[in-house]
């Protein structure tokens, strides 16, 4: 039978969670509400005596100083509405798992007694609410119907003596394990129907290739030998769907594209990935020669570069957009712990040293009617923030920086970019760590979590738009502690050389992790019956493709297996042998003695023909804005500082641990009051050296409203200039490209596919052009191509977005520079040229315009500036340096001043510019490759000499001293007419900047 233990706070003690919920009910749902109290509920599905339950309740489950408990009774009293929220069957319940382990330890483990613990939470609300309001609180705030169930009980229906009846969310279903065979020898319509009904996301053409493969007589002969017939098994079909999914195979990036540039020129591009991304990296590496910093690019779970002679750095950014749209908390949590496993499973395995996150949301104050199945942006914002908080903080990995972008179109899908970096010794046990090998005969071993139905069809689902039937099982909830225990163990196993190869289980689960690594030996023999399950009743195909979290797959030499398993057992980590790697040329999957999949490795990985796509570019023409310059420039600047894309993100930043591991050098918040926005993060990954790492991001989706080429160029420039501003140099900098696009394949539902694909082509051309120009190679990347929403007649597509992330080395962290003004009397410089490039700027957006001329990056000039500036910073000549991005010079000047707690006197007439005849444009143009730097008068001469460079230089760096830092706390601007344009106290400017998301 099931028991309930309820735990609540003693009378008179605060209930911080209750208070927070109360605030959210009144502020977000606008429902007047009295006090809110919470009660934690543990439902124990097993037989225990009252004494045992008391021991558990009084011991690990409650804190006697502040809490009280009741066993099989009710604490709820003095409420008007009771809402209890618990998980649905099969959803990961981390707290329940920890409670069960604590009970086993306390009461002793016995094989005769198996039990489970499920958690739920009661919210006791006071206030004169109606049922409709209580239901609204439950569905819009407390519970996510997709993964949670809830009960709403009004006071009058409550019987304290009876309390709530225990509810056990047990997974039930057919206990009969079966493998199905599907006949593909059917007509086209039926083939398409098979793909749709099974959420395979395979096209008709791809289904036909599968059909033809099975028609091959030699294939039939081989299959016969292992007891398979002419029909495809569900395991094979599902495995192929994973392996061939857009998510895993990047079909669009590998397609043959005929690109029409709209001006009569047509070219054929044989794979954007090969030509633009890999192609540019190859050229850069060749040019670098002996100085090449790349060790492993595009072949592993993450890219690897050199840090120093003895250590290498690993970096990867992933997205987890679709799951975060459905379950923001679980989706984002899984996003971060999922990307953690990428560097962890790269090469021979890396220790994780930083996270960096970028989120794109619709505005949290969105007040129009929400399309069906879309959660309110504020809920997505809060849920994602919290998911990444728990995932990052509990894993002990510092979240060293990130950013938040807002645009209404992210209502269609939020973008949740999670990035993780790692470090590993360059050699372990005498072998280089940046490569992978597997020998035939090596054992396939899975470690970490168990397999459930969670995350089934994650890969295929994310290869589609969000639609009515988007599956519930596509969502998983990560468990950072299970993963931490596993990574602690595997790092030890790594250093002892106990395994040969490591990779992670992400999208596609075992089918991908084993399928991909089996290429190293040439085949595999995998027995799914050996796999540890969360609960019985999973069919073989489900075990094969489940995306249950916290799992790594390893290849282990049979002579080391005993030592490996013993260490796992000692460290309380589950590890299971699931078969062996072979050189049979076949991906062979069994369930005990019966074969459930038998596919030629070559067909599995290379059987998919390239897609053929067409792209046609036509530049959009928009209305040229007409509005007068602001009457009050100070007011305008404050308005700009308050905008969502510019304002302070401190409330979010503070909730992420950015200092754990002890190597924090430049934090996300800097300056006199620890609240200025830093441009890039600097950390020291090894505590006994001053060598450090710089990490920065660039992202500007708005510019793709004008031209995705410039959007991408600006993203790259922004990432690079952020890194430079903080102390990096172009000599030791590598990038990651992470594309989030709306469906660019022309079809009935995407009539503008050719235009969207042209945007993709153009963005890729920019990646090619600018990475080569800067000599910053891409080392890894990712694309997510179906960020659309389509239900009923509503279709929302995100703006095409490239996140460019860079990682660089700084030789001595003591040379790093922060963005805050340092001393009164320092000279303020503007570096780089300001042009009339107002298109898609925040200033135009404020006036409701997009315009036509977005910023363009002049890579030659920028490179010269970045090289000179890096030299000046390396010589210690620069007191502060801040990049100009959203909101332009006006925002950068204000931020520099108020972060330093100092004033500024600026003469805008001095600013190097071209083609601008309005002060507001000069202040808010978002021209790229610019900085605001401050320099002590003692260093002025040397600083300017470095910027000037050689006299013979045909295109010198644009720079000018434009004013001075003042002790008087005012930002004072003189306009181009030399009149005082504005004078605002830095406190007021800062307040405007801080109020929006505080």
């Amino acid at each position, binding site marked *: 039978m099931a028991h309930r233990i309820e735990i609540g706070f003693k009378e008179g003690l605060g209930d911080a969670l209750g208070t927070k919920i109360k605030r959210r009910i009144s502020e977000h749902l606008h429902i007047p509400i009295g006090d809110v109290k919470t009660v934690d509920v543990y439902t124990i599905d097993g037989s225990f005596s009252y004494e045992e339950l008391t021991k558990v309740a009084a011991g690990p489950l409650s804190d006697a100083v502040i809490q009280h408990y009741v066993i099989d009774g009710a604490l709820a009293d003095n409420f008007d509405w009771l809402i209890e929220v618990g998980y649905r069957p099969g959803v990961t319940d981390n707290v329940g798992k920890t409670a069960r382990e604590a009970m086993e330890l306390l009461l002793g483990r016995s094989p005769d007694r198996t039990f489970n613990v499920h958690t739920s939470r009661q919210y006791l609300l006071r206030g004169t609410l109606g049922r409709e309001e209580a239901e609204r609180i439950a569905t819009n705030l407390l519970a996510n119907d997709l993964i949670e169930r809830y009960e709403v009980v009004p006071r009058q229906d409550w019987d304290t003596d009876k309390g709530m009846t225990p509810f056990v969310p047990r997974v039930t279903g057919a206990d009969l394990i079966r493998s199905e065979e599907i006949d593909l020898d059917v007509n086209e319509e039926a083939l398409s129907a098979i793909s749709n009904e099974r959420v395979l996301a395979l096209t008709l053409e791809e289904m036909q290739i599968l059909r033809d493969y099975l028609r091959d007589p030699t294939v039939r002969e081989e299959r016969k030998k292992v007891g398979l017939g002419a029909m495809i098994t569900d395991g094979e079909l599902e495995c192929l769907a994973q392996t061939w999914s857009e998510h895993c195979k990047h079909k669009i990036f590998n397609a043959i594209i005929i690109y029409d540039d709209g001006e009569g020129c047509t070219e054929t591009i044989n794979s954007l990935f090969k030509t633009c991304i890999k192609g540019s990296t190859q050229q850069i590496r060749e040019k670098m020669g002996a100085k090449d910093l790349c060790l492993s690019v595009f072949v592993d779970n993450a890219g690897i570069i050199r840090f120093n002679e003895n250590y290498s750095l690993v970096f990867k950014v992933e997205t987890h957009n679709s799951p975060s749209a459905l379950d923001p908390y679980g989706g984002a949590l899984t996003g971060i712990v999922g990307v953690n496993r990428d560097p962890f499973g790269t090469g021979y395995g890396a220790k994780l040293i930083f996270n960096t996150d970028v989120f794109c949301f619709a505005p949290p104050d969105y007040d129009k009617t929400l399309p069906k199945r879309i959660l309110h942006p504020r809920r997505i914002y809060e849920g994602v923030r919290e998911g990444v908080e728990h995932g990052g903080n509990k894993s002990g990995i510092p979240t060293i920086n990130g950013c938040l972008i807002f645009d209404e179109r992210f209502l269609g899908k939020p973008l949740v970019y999670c990035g993780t970096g790692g470090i590993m010794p360059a050699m372990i046990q005498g072998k280089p760590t940046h490569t992978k090998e597997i020998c035939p005969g090596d054992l396939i071993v899975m470690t970490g979590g168990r397999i459930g139905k969670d995350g089934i069809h994650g890969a295929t689902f994310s290869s589609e738009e969000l639609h009515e039937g988007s599956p519930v099982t596509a969502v998983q909830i990560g468990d950072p502690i299970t993963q931490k225990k596993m990574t602690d163990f595997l790092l030890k196993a790594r250093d002892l050389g106990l395994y040969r190869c490591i990779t992670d289980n992400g999208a596609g689960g075992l089918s991908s992790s084993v399928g991909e690594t089996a290429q190293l030996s040439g085949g595999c023999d995998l027995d799914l019956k050996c796999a540890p399950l969360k609960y019985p009743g999973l069919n073989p195909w489900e075990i094969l493709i489940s995306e249950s979290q916290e799992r790594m797959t390893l290849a282990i030499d049979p002579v080391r297996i005993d030592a490996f398993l013993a260490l796992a057992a000692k460290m309380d980590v589950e590890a299971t042998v699931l078969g062996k790697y072979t050189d049979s040329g076949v991906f062979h999957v069994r369930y005990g003695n019966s074969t459930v999949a038998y596919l030629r490795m070559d067909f599995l990985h290379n059987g998919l023909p390239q897609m053929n796509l067409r792209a046609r570019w036509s530049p959009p023409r928009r209305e040229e804005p007409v509005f007068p310059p602001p009457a009050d420039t100070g007011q305008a600047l404050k308005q700009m500082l308050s905008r969502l894309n510019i304002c302070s993100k401190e409330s979010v930043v503070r909730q992420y641990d950015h*200092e754990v591991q002890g190597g924090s*050098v430049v934090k996300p918040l800097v300056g006199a009051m620890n609240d200025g926005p830093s441009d890039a993060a600097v950390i020291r990954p090894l505590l006994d050296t001053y060598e450090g790492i710089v990490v920065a991001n660039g992202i500007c989706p708005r510019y793709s409203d004008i031209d995705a080429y410039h959007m991408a160029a600006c993203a790259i420039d922004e990432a690079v200039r952020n890194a430079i501003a903080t102390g990096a140099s172009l000599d030791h900098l590598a990038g990651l490209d992470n594309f989030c696009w709306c469906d660019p394949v022309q079809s009935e539902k995407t009539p503008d596919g050719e235009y969207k694909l042209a945007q993709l082509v153009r963005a890729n051309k920019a990646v090619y052009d600018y990475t080569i120009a800067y000599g910053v190679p891409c080392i890894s990347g990712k694309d997510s191509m179906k960020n659309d929403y389509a239900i009923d007649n509503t279709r929302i597509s995100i703006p095409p977005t490239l996140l460019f992330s860079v990682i660089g080395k700084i030789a001595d962290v003591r040379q790093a520079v922060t963005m805050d003004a340092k001393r009164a009397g320092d000279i303020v410089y503007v570096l780089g040229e300001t042009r009339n490039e107002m298109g898609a700027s925040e200033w135009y957006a404020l006036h409701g315009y997009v315009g036509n001329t977005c910023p363009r990056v002049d890579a030659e000039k920028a490179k010269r500036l970045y090289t000179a500036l890096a030299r000046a910073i390396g010589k210690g000549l620069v007191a502060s340096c801040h990049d100009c991005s959203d909101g332009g010079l006006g925002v950068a000047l204000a931020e520099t001043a108020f972060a330093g707690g100092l004033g500024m006197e600026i003469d805008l007439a001095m600013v190097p510019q071209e083609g601008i005849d309005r002060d507001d444009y000069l202040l808010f143009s978002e021209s790229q490759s610019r900085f605001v730097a401050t320099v002590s008068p003692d260093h002025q001469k040397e600083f300017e000499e470095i910027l000037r460079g050689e006299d013979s230089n045909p295109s010198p760096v644009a720079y000018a001293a434009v004013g001075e830092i003042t002790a008087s706390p005012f930002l004072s601007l003189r306009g181009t007419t030399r009149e005082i344009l504005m004078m605002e106290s830095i406190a007021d400017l800062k307040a405007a900047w801080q109020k929006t998301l505080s």
Partner: protein
Amino acid sequence: MTKANINKIVKSIVITGNGTNCEVEMAHACRLAGSDVVDIVHISELLHGEKRLDDYHFLNLPGGFLDGDDLGSAKAGANRIRHATIEGTEEKLYDQMTRFIRDGKLILGVCNGFQLLVKLGLLPGFDGDYLTQTVTLSFNDSGRFEDRWVHLAVNSESPCIYTEGTKCLYLPVRHGEGKFIVRDPSILTRLHKEGRIAVQYSSDKDGSPTMDYPANPNGAIDAIAGICNDTGRIFGLMPHPEAYLHRTNHPRWTREDLPETGMGLIIFQNAIDFIRRQVI
């Protein structure tokens, strides 16, 4: 192992596993502070009898999220230490811990380590009772996890050996459950009377203890940030001394003149010096 065998070599242990995450920098702090031996030991090595607390002088309980803090901060972790036995023996890990205390050795718990000490009943440990929990650390008043630097006022009357010779400290807090609460007012009175309150959150203006957010980041009663036992040899605090070992850890190191060594190191130096002077 007898004292003579240890040979005046200071040995520090940092326990890790099940969700700790500050073990590397804590071990680094011990090393910088002059500990001759510093071992990061996974709890499974203790539970399998491969390592014993008896072989060390200085026990460090680092920050992190033991078992995810799923049952309340460090609750499941405390349950493990209290009830887990050493493989193949009847001895509990807790027995080793109480023996460690009886031997006059030093224990430092930071953040989650402090939460663990409190929930085990090791702090404040009145009258040698190291089993009864009398204080706790609960959810911040803000309802949020927060990473921010705080000023600490050091109680010069405290027997705490770790804070000796310091007046104030500036360190980061990084927690969601740091609000210090006592079981009843008599506990608080006694903590004050016996000088057990070693560090308090203080105002950056006059250095006095404060209840104002964010200087007091969690609403701790009487601004309590850290307490010690009667001998001053067991010390727990929410702020992270191991996070400020070098000037570049300071949030304003690019704008202030700071000594090369970070302020957090003194906590570890005092511990190691004390061990050399009085424990070995």
